[in-house]
């Protein structure tokens, strides 16, 4: 039983798998960044699209992962492999500590608070706190991944590592959507009072979304820092957060294909139109408005009704 969506998914997977074979290195870099940004956008979508929390500071978690890897590697000489776990755990911990006191705030208030965290994060980086972050220039000379004497140093290696990370992320999202955790997030999103009355601890599941989203974004950040072998604050500022926020809504919140399309539209398309340097973002802004007017729920909106087949038998 093969439906249309899974056919498209498989075709895309095959295409992405062989992508490095027929592009030059510039496009390979774009492809790798597309994969990394997709992971970040999907993790943003856990918080925004699933739990329905207005979160506009996701670049901070992405940056925390990147800087954790960079600091541990450049300043303390740890191998990249050893920085992976901290790069996931640090954003999770920060998410918990920062978000727990404000998780009860109503939508727009939470939105500006998360923007605030992102701005504070950038100031911490720029002011080179404890001499660790390298200030406005950031940190350079991040190592490549080395396992048992083998160096994953080429661009193609980077691409496939990002590909695997996206695969893992999609696997997690699929499990999330088919578990009581993902469902609880949706219930909270759609009607908080009804969800509470069904025994759902709103605070717990909103925090769960934040912490899981932060961890995945941190993993992507770690990969991003290795890809460019450098990190600097402007890659993780509020403008980037707004981009991830927009990717989710333009693509279709809570929809896996939607978020991937969103990343393509918001990141890869502008790369394709680089020659129209100046007018590029003007057109882009118009496109954002038109997309929302024509597809208010995104280009590929989420479809509910993902239930086991045995329950569909009675459906007429």
């Amino acid at each position: 039983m093969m439906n249309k969506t899974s056919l498209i998914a498989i075709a895309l997977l095959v295409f992405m798998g062989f992508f490095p074979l027929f592009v030059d290195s510039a496009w390979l870099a774009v492809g790798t960044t597309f994969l990394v940004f997709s992971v970040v956008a999907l993790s943003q979508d856990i918080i925004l699209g699933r739990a329905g929390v207005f979160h506009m500071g996701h670049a901070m978690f992405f940056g925390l992962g990147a800087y954790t890897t960079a600091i541990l590697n450049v300043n303390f000489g740890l191998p990249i492999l050893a920085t992976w776990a901290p790069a996931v755990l640090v954003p999770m911990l920060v998410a918990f500590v920062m978000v727990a006191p404000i998780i009860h705030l109503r939508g727009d208030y939470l939105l500006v608070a998360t923007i605030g965290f992102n701005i504070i994060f950038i100031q911490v980086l720029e002011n080179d706190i404890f001499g660790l972050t390298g200030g406005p220039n950031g940190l350079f000379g991040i190592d490549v991944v080395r396992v048992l004497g083998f160096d994953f140093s080429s661009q193609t290696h980077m691409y496939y590592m990002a590909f695997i990370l996206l695969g893992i992320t999609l696997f997690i999202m699929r499990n999330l959507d088919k578990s009581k955790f993902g469902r609880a997030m949706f219930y909270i999103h759609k009607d908080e009072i009804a969800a509470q009355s069904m025994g759902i601890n709103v605070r717990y599941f909103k925090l769960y979304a934040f912490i899981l989203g932060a961890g995945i974004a941190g993993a992507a950040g770690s990969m991003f820092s290795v890809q460019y072998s450098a990190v600097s604050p402007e890659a993780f500022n509020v403008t980037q957060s707004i981009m991830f926020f927009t990717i989710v809504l333009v693509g279709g919140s809570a929809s896996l294909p939607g978020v991937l399309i969103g990343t393509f539209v918001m990141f890869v398309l502008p790369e394709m139109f680089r020659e129209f340097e100046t007018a590029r973002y003007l057109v882009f802004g118009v496109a954002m408005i038109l997309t929302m007017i024509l597809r208010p729920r995104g280009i590929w909106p989420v479809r509910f009704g993902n239930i086991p087949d045995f329950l569909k038998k009675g459906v007429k």
Partner: protein
Amino acid sequence: MSEYILEISHVSKYFQGLVAINDLSMKVKKGQIYGIIGPNGAGKTTLFNCITGIYRPEIGQILWKGKDIKGSNPYKIAELGILRTFQTIRLFAEMSVAENIMSGRHIKSKQRWYNGVIPTPAYVRDEKANWEKVGELMDFFNLTEYATIPAGDLSYGIQRRIEMARALAAEPELLILDEPAAGLNENETLELTQTIRKIQEMGVTIMMIEHDMEMVMSLSEYITVINFGAKISEGVPSFVQDDPVVIEAYIGSDEEDEDE
């Protein structure tokens, strides 16, 4: 433990200095169907919101099996086995009927925190068992044919059934129904009456607000009448029906269809 599972004693709730519930007391026996009636704006729904933790009454006690639950978070009250429906129907409108009912299985689900990320054999069993339970409830409420349809697209009467199925999916000890017959036609009301009886036979205690007098009088074993936030009468249906205070309260008010 006493024979009452829910004891409400001297509860008062104010909104910006105005009294919404005034020194209200009542006792609900296990297995009973308990009716609450009264004119519009009498504070009936406010009482339900106090029991289910959405509001915190300023004064009084709400004892569940002898323990005060006043002001607990709504999700904790649901975990204790007190589940409700809403007068204004609060379904997850974009989600399918089956997914809506599945929300009732939340507190019964044994999934661990890591199952949001990684499936385990125990998780697979749990997930399957809960969906099966959803299937049973859809059979019970004649909802099977709508399993995949977004709840918000269905008619009023069907939505009321989904809400009851959702609450029942949590295997409640006390089911609180806020005007279950509102907006239903005569046939649907009749069906609902039978359904409520069947739920009672499962051993579930039921409290309900209802304006359909015929239905509430035939179902309830005990009734409290509220007006202006205070109890004006209580007793078995036949007593309440003939109580002059109650008749006075109803004649004094113009509308009987909608609550506050």
